């Protein structure tokens, strides 16, 4: 795509700007800022990726992944303020899922050990893991609050924290996994996934693009399950003290 074509694509920004102005939606400034930010961020990433790909250094790959994990943690921790040490729990979860997926991909030589593969796949894995973490933490916090009486009842009957929190924990894990599973059921029927579409537009063989997309879908299933479960089991003990008493949940973000 030439820069002229890219410039012409700004028509798609002018349409919502015009609509917002006409209908007094007051979204002109936000739309403008979002457009400028996306241009700067993506162009910067483009140049950084070009540099990293050309350098072939694993140090830069690690730095890129670390940056992704840092940004994902910063974004997701706002939903888990009521859980003590949430930042380190998130970092550990993202790190584990990244190491696990790359170990399988590189270990079985499913993808080559180059920056072109490691960085985009890491982006998808960590990004998906971040969304799952937000979904899980949101649901878990509200489940704990709405089921507080049941949790205390189970403690009062002689249950351990793990037994008392079992139902809210399982419900939250299930609820956070549903969107991933449901979207995979309709994939290809309702929407063509972004990565596959991108490859086809760039001229790749559609079957090859589908094979890669399937790899990513399976990868994301593991990411989703491991993220929710790991984060859940890392988080629940911090809701209780050593006397198996439920600690107060801090509300608000």
């Amino acid at each position: 795509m030439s820069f002229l074509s890219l410039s012409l694509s700004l028509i798609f920004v002018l349409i919502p700007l015009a609509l917002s102005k006409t209908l007094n939606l007051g979204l002109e400034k936000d739309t403008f800022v979002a457009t400028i930010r996306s241009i700067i961020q993506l162009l910067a990433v483009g140049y950084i990726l070009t540099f990293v790909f050309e350098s072939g250094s694993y140090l830069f790959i690690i730095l890129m992944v670390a940056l992704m994990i840092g940004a994902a943690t910063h974004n997701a921790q706002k939903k888990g303020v009521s859980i003590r040490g949430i930042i380190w729990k998130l970092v550990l979860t993202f790190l584990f899922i990244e190491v696990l997926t790359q170990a399988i991909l590189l270990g079985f030589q499913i993808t080559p050990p180059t920056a072109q593969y490691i960085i985009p796949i890491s982006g998808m894995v960590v990004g998906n893991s971040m969304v799952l973490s937000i979904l899980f933490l949101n649901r878990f916090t509200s489940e704990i609050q709405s089921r507080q009486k049941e949790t205390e009842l189970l403690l009062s009957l002689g249950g351990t924290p793990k037994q008392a929190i079992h139902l809210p924990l399982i419900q939250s894990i299930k609820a956070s996994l549903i969107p991933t599973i449901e979207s995979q059921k309709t994939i290809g029927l309702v929407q063509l996934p972004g990565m596959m579409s991108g490859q086809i537009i760039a001229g790749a063989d559609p079957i090859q693009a589908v094979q890669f997309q399937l790899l990513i879908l399976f990868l994301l299933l593991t990411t989703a399950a491991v993220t929710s479960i790991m984060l859940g089991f890392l988080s629940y003990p911090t809701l209780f003290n050593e006397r198996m008493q439920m600690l107060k949940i801090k509300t608000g973000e």
Partner: protein
Amino acid sequence: MQQANVLTGKAAIELNHVSYSDEGLDIIKDVSGSLPEGKITTFVGPSGAGKTTIFRLLNGLISPTKGDIQLFGENIQTIEPTTLRRTVGIALQDATMLRGSVYKNLAMPKTLQNQELKKEEAEHLLTQVGLDASFLHRDVTDLSGGQRQKVSIARTLVNHPKVLLLDEITSSLDRVSTSDIEHLIQHINKEFAVTIAWITHNLDQALLIGDYTWVMMNGELIESGSTDVLKNPVNPRIQEFVKGEWQ
């Protein structure tokens, strides 16, 4: 205002200068007293006096900020929490139910220990609390307030507690159900020598079923002793409270 503990005999539970604060608020203030073993002690006092907080302290759901609580001579802070909560059972005013059947609720204390509650045992428990055995497979959403309270008591009894804490368990019941529960608790107390602590707003009930009583106000234990405390109060604060309750 703290009175000396006038209860005699062996204590199942003893509180020594117990205080409890939450978010800077003093909820229990330097309470010392005891629950005599094998007896029924009623807890009376206005709302917000700290009675339920005392029960939560005894069941180990919270810990004292100051002071200590002894259960049969052992500091409860040294007792493994699950053991403590099975030994000191609690039935709360709102009779929280777990979603599902009556059986699921009754079996829960056993389930938590990876054990099974036999159907016959569950039916026996139901009849003990005055419910027909046919209730076993009913969904808890189909139960009335009184029936839920009876199931809640039966569920607590599954652990065979040595001390049973009852928090206003008859406040939502009609006269007949209240009387059933009173007889049941007296039966459990006599038959199994279970020490009972019972929070009630009903002074008639406190006099009828209690061997002893604690009068609490504003987080303090104003007086403890025989139920005569309620019949002929000496303390002016208790006089005022009792007068208000009888009216």
